[in-house]
């Protein structure tokens, strides 16, 4: 139980740091002077100290949505085995329930965006739902690759059986990894689909939905989108780079220490890689997004085929 709480607290604490690291790498790559690593924390502190302004037409749904978002993302962080596999929450829910959690968060955010009735909010909500319904099957297919390989739908057992295997890179995982990366970029409003740093309302997707939020509500929404990115990164590590995660057989505290250090190292590399991808690619037109996500889906299906036919 202590481990479980420790893992969740770690996730909540370092999720903004991960976002800050990506921002810093992007700034370096684009020849700008980088903001400090603690910039997301400062932003959160500033927002928590402000007074919230609510639209006159806002319903309770609008006010409760930030808390629901934050709650679902924290719960997701508890399910994903980012540091250790023998967690009570991680055993309770499998990866398909995890996708359901992400979908819940998406539905609530979209409803809240439409609740106020501004044009930008509902436009952003519609776009986000379009991306979401295309990205979700692709993500499921990616997960099916891992499930097929290890014979279980629970992420902890996926991690355990792939760390036990001597040569963990199966050919089908190459396809799944590329598809997962594409889904990650699309789901977290990153550059080929959406630009997280945009100021132009007409091109926004995620930002358009949270335009009406301010102060502590906005802080929670921002924090939960940082957490979402962190969660996706941890799913990726669990599926494709499971080295270092503490398994039940290992020696307790030492293994945990190694796992935390391994997680930080992986996040460091993954953040730099994400920043590089975002700098190298241009934002797609919104009508190209279905094509992009269909490609991700097909790659994941191809992974399944390669696994079945290459006979691993």
């Amino acid at each position, binding site marked *: 139980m202590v481990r479980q709480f420790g893992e969740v607290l770690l996730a909540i604490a370092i999720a903004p740091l991960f976002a800050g690291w990506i921002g810093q790498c992007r700034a370096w790559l684009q020849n700008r002077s980088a903001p400090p690593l603690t910039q997301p924390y400062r932003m959160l502190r500033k927002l928590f100290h402000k007074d919230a302004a609510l639209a006159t037409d806002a319903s309770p749904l609008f006010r409760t949505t930030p808390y629901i978002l934050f709650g679902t993302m924290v719960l997701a962080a508890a399910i994903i085995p980012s540091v250790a596999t023998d967690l009570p929450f991680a055993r309770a829910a499998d990866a398909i329930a995890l996708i359901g959690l992400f979908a819940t968060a998406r539905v609530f955010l979209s409803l809240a965006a439409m609740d106020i009735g501004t044009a930008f909010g509902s436009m952003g909500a519609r776009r986000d739902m379009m991306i979401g319904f295309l990205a979700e099957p692709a993500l499921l297919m990616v997960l099916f690759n891992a499930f097929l390989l290890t014979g279980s739908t629970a992420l902890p057992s996926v991690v355990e059986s792939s760390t036990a295997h001597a*040569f963990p890179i199966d050919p089908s995982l*190459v*396809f799944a990894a590329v598809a997962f990366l594409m889904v990650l970029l699309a789901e977290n409003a990153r550059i080929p689909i959406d630009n997280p740093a945009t100021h132009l309302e007409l091109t926004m997707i995620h930002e358009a939905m949270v335009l009406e939020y301010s102060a502590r509500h906005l802080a929670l929404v921002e924090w939960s989108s940082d957490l979402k990115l962190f969660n996706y990164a941890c799913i990726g590590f669990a599926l494709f780079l499971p080295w270092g995660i503490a398994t039940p057989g290992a020696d307790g505290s030492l293994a945990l220490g190694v796992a935390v250090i391994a997680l930080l190292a992986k996040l460091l590399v993954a953040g730099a890689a994400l920043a590089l991808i975002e700098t190298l690619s241009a934002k797609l037109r919104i009508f190209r997004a279905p*094509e992009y996500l269909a490609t991700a889906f*097909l790659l994941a299906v191809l992974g399944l*085929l390669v696994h079945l036919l*290459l006979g691993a």
Partner: protein
Amino acid sequence: MRPSNLIAELLKLLAASLLLISFAMLSRRRTQRLITLFAWQGSVLFVSTLLVAYSAGLTELYYSAALTLALKVIALPWILHRLIQRLGAQWDSEPLVNIPTTMLVGLGLVIFAFGLAQPISRMATTITRHTIGVALAVIFLAFLMMITRRKAITQVIGFLAMENGLFFAATSATYGMPMVIELGIALDLLVGFFILGIFFFQIREQFDSLDLSHLESLKEE
């Protein structure tokens, strides 16, 4: 794990990445990206040939790996880059069918190729016999690319990618062809490529474009 087992796993991984690169080539619109991907395909082929040569202990295969490196990773991509710069052809190459449909057709082709290769791979005795299906799929996908693209350059890249697939099929099914044949094919490829390069300029001079659909209007209706 025994080294030969490890090599077999690595070869499967390389075969999968070869297939992945073929799909990436199908989904690219820009000619320049295609050339980069073609160079990547060549380098994967080079590494896999080296691995097969090492595991089978065949000196001939080392030569053909070196030939792959020189020709498909360095020379041909470089010449292609020069060519499209001289032609000013860094434009978008629009495929005939839209990309998701092309990918779906590609998926069907992969299934077909795997089905086709199953009896062959049962007869083969090499450690790479599982990858014959992948090699066939790469050939089919390159063929599909030649069919769906209109521009002359992308069709030539498809042709070269098809040769890559054939080469991979040869190494994975029978540890490569005799050296004389392989040299002959490499030379043929180079000569054919030069002739096609001259054709590019001729086509552009005649039609002010590299779009091959203009060639069809020559027919008497």
